[in-house]
């Protein structure tokens, strides 16, 4: 229950327009993309206008779940501000994941940070990233290596 007495949903997406709904079965949740019918570019999330050409002729679609690692880095220090990742901090990979839909998505990349390599195959993983102040499960996403456990 929220302060004003209304029921809050048990789960919310880390950014509302990034993930398909419902959020009950996380295995079925997909990333949402927007494809511009004008210039053909696809970008992450639901958008009213194309970030490339500015057209409003946009189509919302589910993005593919399989991709490859285009580039990455290892974050070796706890990010500043309201970081809600594991505590104590653990170094993690972030990278640009190339999807078959013609875009590269910036995301957490799961796998041994010392063994990461450009080009490895990845699969979307949707999971409860943290719990917010209102006690709701906040659903985030990452890409996990499929070639090595």
């Amino acid at each position: 229950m929220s302060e004003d007495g209304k029921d809050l949903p048990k789960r919310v997406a880390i950014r509302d327009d990034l993930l398909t709904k419902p959020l009950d079965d996380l295995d079925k949740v997909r990333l949402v993309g927007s494809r511009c019918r004008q210039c053909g570019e696809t970008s992450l999330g639901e958008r009213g206008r194309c970030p490339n050409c500015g057209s409003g002729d946009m189509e919302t679609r589910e993005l593919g779940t399989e991709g490859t690692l285009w580039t990455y880095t290892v974050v070796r220090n706890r990010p500043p501000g309201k970081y809600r990742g594991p505590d104590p901090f653990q170094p993690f990979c972030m990278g640009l994941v190339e999807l078959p839909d013609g875009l590269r998505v910036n995301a957490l990349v799961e796998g041994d940070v010392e063994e990461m390599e450009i080009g490895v195959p990845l699969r979307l993983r949707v999971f409860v990233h943290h719990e917010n102040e209102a006690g709701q499960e906040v659903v985030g996403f990452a890409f996990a290596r499929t070639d090595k456990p």
Partner: protein
Amino acid sequence: MSDVVILGIGIHPFGRFDKTFEEIGAEAAAQAIDDAGVTWQDIQTAYLSRMYLPATSGARILRRLGSTDIPICDIEAACASGGVALRQAILAIRSGEIDLALVLGTEKMPRGFMDPSMIYAPWQVAMGLSLNPSYWSMRAKRHMYEHGTSELQIAKVAHKNHRNSVHNPNAMYRKEFSMEKIMESPLVCDPIHLLEICAPNDGAAAVVVASKERAAKLGGRPIQVDACVHTLATYSSDFRCPADSMSATMAPPGPTSATARKAYEIAGIGPQDIDCFEVQDTDAFCEIEIYEDIGLCGLGEGGALIDSGRTEINGDTPVNMSGGLICKGEPVGASHLGQIHEIVSQLRGDSGPRQVSGARTGMAHVLGAGGNCAVTIMSR
């Protein structure tokens, strides 16, 4: 743009100081005004470039020099703020409305990583996708993959800049480090090490700009502004900014390439005509990429260029004679004007042990959040 000149320069050293932003800003401004041989009361308009300071900082700093009713405002365009403020002063002069302006850059920043909420969305901060160096590092990794650039080459850039900084009294770090020391310093974001990265800090730098006609009457040692260009990264041309995704189907020229190209066109010269460069080495890899983007070498040849030694002070295309951002630190609003201070000193022949012999032309380059890029070309 050869109708506008830099008549005076001033700087407060970059570093960490137990002084207010008003104090360091006013010191740099007063120095630039003195250097130009004019008084504060002569100045007809003033711009402050800043990113992290509070509202009306420009007016608050400059009131310390005495009362005036001239227009003073604050300008912000992330790391390119200084270039943008300078550009406004140039436009004001070219409009014919004024002929003498002050451009001041000042910043006073907290230690460590910058406040991510200034440029990242809450969900990016929550997931940890909010560290500037991680974006720089992803570019480095891809460059290494595509072009064979090595960690050794990246470290060489840091080595060169640390060596140069020893002679720069305005730099925060003025210490030479061995290649081993650099490569053994802690990784911040792979492949970038602590001694290969710049830190936010405090600092101020200022220039007095004038129309050529006014400068002719005033005398002094004017340096011509041949171009001052600001652009934003176009879609998918840069992944330094906190974007969520980029195109996998198109790769337009990055902001540094696009901005440098325009600046060369306006100045009517090319990279081969420029004697010295100050560029945005927020990390050592970045300088390698900039070599390529401003045309000092071809695509993928940045690593070979640092190997060649040609970007040393005594090379034929010296880069970051000041020690660069790695050694000076990055007081964001002051950064580009600090570069211009260095270039003007070089073109005047005032740079002492780090003087580029016979330098007649120079370029200053900044690049930051949002893909904001500014390039200024100067000559004597």
